[in-house]
């Protein structure tokens, strides 16, 4: 799920992810009375929340779409077996509890009772088996998450057993990291046109979905209690000036279309409340290690020393970001504070010299048009000129960009992975030698061994130690040159409460109370 605010239609489905114990958002006004998932508010406040999202969903089949905009809607319509809380810890959702066998190969989930789908039918284990099997199917965009799943069985109505070929400590992330793993009623794909219709167990029912927007109504029988608002209307506000004007006039109540350059102004604006939370997304630069001179680790380290992350962050996010030399923020559970590269053009030049990189060496940096990658590349161009590298900025629209990335037709590219919850999701396939997203061509047997070991380690602390070790090697080898974690910035009308900005960009409206 790439953020469209940056114009990446791509989904890096990558995305998805999960969990990381990040700190919660700031400037957030959460309704303290209604603890999510425990009790229904006694008197629903009512009203329809109108949300302006910054791009248009392509379709609403949760197992097929990879667009973030689709998940902004689906988040409120469907449930998963487990779900991350704002700090990234997995909590019960449709599964009330779960147990892992001693060998780590069998996970048994006990399902919640008294859950009904929007059409009134009762939820049971057959629905879970149907949904999980659909996710592993050929046309599912989340099939890769089930690589270690051998079978999915339902011994009785309230129990689901997942059998694995290898221990998979990140299984909860794989089945509940975001709404791409939504549970549908058995036979839903035959009964409904899932691209435009939905039948979930979530807090809202989907009434309509069209090119103009999507309309949701409160589902009074939701297992966690009825939502506080009567409904939610999603509008597609792709132009930010228009979105902010609509917010000021009260035409919409909430939007995520807040350009970073406007944040400072908006913070002094009485008509708008801004919510900011550090995200678990990261932006990075990857050099093509199948190509000279970037196959030489000193050449890559030279580039890493030649980048001024502070200036890059200022140019792209106007400060609404945190510089980082590893993947995710240091204060999250999987974060690891390691920063060997100070901005130092002289040291950069020395390393480049030792790698035999001549002054005037060109480096094409491929970025997606209309994303913050363009501003970042401009700063890198100026930074690296000081170290004698001539950067050529290559802007491509996302479809072409993905082609070139897939074919290895680049010197370097800048990109992001978003919503990084479990390190398996953001280290493994990116950095093991034959990893499916290892487009940069990195290969270090030691890192492979560490990552393989970590992938199967069931003790979380031991697992973290392994990932920390691997992270340092990845950074030292400059497999990725990590740059920064952007903030999540959203805005709403003053007086709106019960909403929390989350590091994983999930948006949940069931507890929202509209202003008088």
């Amino acid at each position, binding site marked *: 799920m790439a953020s469209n605010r940056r114009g990446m239609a791509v989904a*890096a*489905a*990558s995305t998805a992810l999960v969990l990381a114990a990040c700190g919660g958002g700031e400037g957030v006004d959460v309704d303290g009375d209604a603890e999510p998932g425990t009790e229904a508010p006694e008197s629903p406040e009512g009203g329809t929340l109108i949300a302006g999202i910054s791009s248009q969903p*392509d379709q609403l089949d949760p197992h097929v779409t990879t667009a973030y905009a689709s998940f902004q809607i689906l988040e409120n319509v469907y449930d998963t077996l487990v779900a991350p809380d704002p700090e990234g810890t997995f909590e019960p959702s449709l599964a009330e509890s779960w147990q892992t066998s001693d060998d780590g190969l069998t996970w048994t989930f006990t399902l919640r009772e008294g859950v009904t789908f929007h059409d009134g039918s009762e939820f049971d284990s057959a629905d879970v088996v149907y949904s999980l099997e659909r996710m592993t199917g050929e*046309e599912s965009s989340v099939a890769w998450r089930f690589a270690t799943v051998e079978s999915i069985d339902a011994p009785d109505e309230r129990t689901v057993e997942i059998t694995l070929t290898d221990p998979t400590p990140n299984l909860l992330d794989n089945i509940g990291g975001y709404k791409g793993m939504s549970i549908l009623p058995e036979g839903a794909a035959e009964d409904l046109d899932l691209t435009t219709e939905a039948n979930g167990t979530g807090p809202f029912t989907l009434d309509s979905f069209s090119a103009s927007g999507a309309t949701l109504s409160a589902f009074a029988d939701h297992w966690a209690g009825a939502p506080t608002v009567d409904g939610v209307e999603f509008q597609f*506000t792709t132009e930010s000036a228009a979105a902010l004007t609509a917010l000021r*006039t009260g035409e919409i109540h909430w939007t995520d279309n807040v350009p970073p350059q406007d944040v400072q102004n908006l913070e002094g604006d009485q008509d708008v409340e801004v919510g900011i939370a550090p995200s678990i997304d990261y932006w990075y630069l990857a050099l093509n290690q199948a190509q000279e001179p970037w196959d030489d680790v000193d050449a890559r380290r030279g580039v890493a020393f030649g980048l001024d992350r502070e200036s890059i962050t200022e140019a792209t996010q106007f400060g609404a970001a945190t510089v980082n030399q590893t993947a995710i923020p240091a204060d999250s559970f999987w974060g690891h504070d390691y920063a060997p590269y100070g901005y130092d053009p002289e040291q950069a030049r020395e390393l480049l010299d030792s790698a035999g990189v001549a002054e005037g060496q060109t480096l094409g940096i491929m970025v997606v048009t209309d994303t913050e990658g363009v501003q970042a590349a401009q700063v890198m161009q100026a930074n690296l000129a000081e170290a004698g590298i001539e950067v050529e900025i290559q802007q491509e629209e*996302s*479809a072409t960009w993905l082609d070139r*990335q897939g074919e290895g037709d680049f010197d370097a590219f800048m990109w992001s992975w978003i919503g990084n919850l479990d390190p398996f999701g953001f280290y493994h396939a990116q950095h093991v030698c034959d990893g499916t997203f290892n487009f940069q061509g990195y290969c270090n047997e030691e890192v492979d061994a560490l990552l393989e070991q970590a992938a199967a380690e069931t003790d979380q602390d031991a697992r973290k130690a392994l990932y920390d070790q691997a992270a340092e090697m990845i950074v030292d080898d400059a497999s990725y040159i990590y740059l920064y974690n952007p903030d999540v910035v959203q805005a709403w009308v003053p007086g709106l409460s019960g909403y929390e900005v989350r590091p994983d960009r999930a948006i949940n409206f069931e507890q929202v109370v509209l202003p008088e």
Partner: protein
Amino acid sequence: MTRYVVRRLAQSAAVLAGVSILVFAVIHLVPGDPIRVALGTRFDQATYDALLERSGLDQPLVTQYFSWLGSAVRGDLGVSFRTGQPVTEVILERLPATASLAVAAILVALLIAVPLGTVSALRPRTVVDWFATVASQAGISVPDFWMGIMFILIFAGTLGWLPTGGYVGLTDDPVEWARRLIMPAVTIGVVSGSIMTRFVRSSVLEALGQEHVQAARAKGMRARDVLTWHVLRNALIPLVTVGGIQLAYLLSGVVVIEIVFRWPGLGQLALQAVQQRDYPVLQGAVLLFAVVFLVVNLVVDLLYARLDPRIAYT
């Protein structure tokens, strides 16, 4: 006349076939893999292969074209790669929004162009003419998206008279439909109207100089009648031509204005289809635009004969 229409329709069919081949060739030449765009960076090879087969993209290009053409002549434009929805359905969903906006914008344009162009032709090289020239020059020069955003800031923001955007169907709520139509229609209408003002001015000037107009004046006909029956009638032909082209252009969607005003029109659909490499949707949309141009042109040509009896089609 009938023979003329039949011949024009036959020509149109040939043009459409040519357009479809051209579009098909061009979209396949442009880099970018629709399946990869849909799946992003992270996917299983098996998923990729399955989607490739379902979309038919694993077939040779010529096979793909003819199977598309075979369905298209039967009215089936295929299904979107991205959503699996029938392309005709996707396009029809957007058509009312685009048609409302195009027609309203042309009306605004005519309301600007006809009076302004006529007045400035009647008083050439006066303050009135000077004002009309500057105004129409400004209307052409100012970027439409900027004008749209300014309208939003002023009329929706500061004054609060109109909603900032969005579309409501005419049958759902006629009042809201009209309120939401005003700003986008005026924005586009100002641009189109500015272009048309120049045409109206020059054709009215030309008509004024013709002998039969001088004769009508000389025989003492009232100035207003001369203008209505001899000048404007003759000036209409170029106006119909330019207006027709503008209308056809607007019916193909106006991407930037649609984005600014949250208008779910064909322009945004076509843009998304390009970005997502959704070939069937793009192919369907371009085919529709070609049909619109051909039909509008045919209607314009037929109107000529209606406006000027000296023109006859055989």
